[in-house]
């Protein structure tokens, strides 16, 4: 998961690119003609000082390697953000990012 967080006009602007196949469960493997099981991120949460500043819930219609951008007030350059995603199989990934 790549995260860029930058101060801009008093707001923290956050851009997130998560590496994930986002399989819908409706796509067939071209070679075997079998359905590829669904595997997609359902929840992506961003916290700043233990406060949830953003929460995204995804369905299967989110593009592969999901990208989201959002912004919030109350952060400062040097603060740490923690981001976590969970997919439908229970796999999870967490990263931290420092606001520039």
């Amino acid at each position, binding site marked *: 998961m790549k995260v860029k967080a930058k101060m801009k006009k008093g707001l923290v602007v956050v851009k997130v690119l998560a590496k994930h196949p986002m399989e819908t469960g409706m796509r067939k493997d071209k070679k075997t003609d079998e359905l590829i099981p669904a595997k997609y991120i359902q929840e992506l949460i961003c916290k700043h000082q233990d406060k949830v500043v953003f929460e995204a819930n995804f*369905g299967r219609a989110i593009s592969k390697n999901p990208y989201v951008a*959002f912004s919030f007030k109350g952060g400062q350059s040097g603060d740490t953000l923690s981001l976590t995603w969970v997919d439908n199989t229970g796999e999870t990934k967490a990263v931290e990012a420092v606001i520039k």
Partner: protein
Amino acid sequence: MQDKRRLLLKSVLGFTAMVAAVTVMPKLAMAKWSKAFDVESMDEALNDLYGSNELITDDRITFKIPEIAENGAVVPVTVKTDIPNVRTISIFAGKNPQPLAASFKIPEGTEANISVRIRLGETMIVKAVVEADGKLYTTEKEVKVTIGGCGG
């Protein structure tokens, strides 16, 4: 002999309990994720998510999405609004197998301005729904899709 059998039984039971715990865990972790993402009608998805499907068209919502998407697999979307007290923003693609694409919670202090990339299976109307003060505001745009985003 008896003791060994007991021991074996215990370890088998223990293992079963462990497997059960592991399989239940993801469900707990996903407790907040709504079943609205699984339903096939937009009205049903709205009802599951908000308990209402009454939408008020409002031009205070800026909805940026390409008019023509050459590749339905990656369609950039931005939803922005001046409506005060926004709690959530959701994106619905009516003709996708499951219309609800994404739903964002906007806590106090977070701007009602989000971007995401979605998949569109075919040419369709895409709706942005903004929840504020218990009401659902919406705006929509038609996107012409050249190559659908769900095939493979």
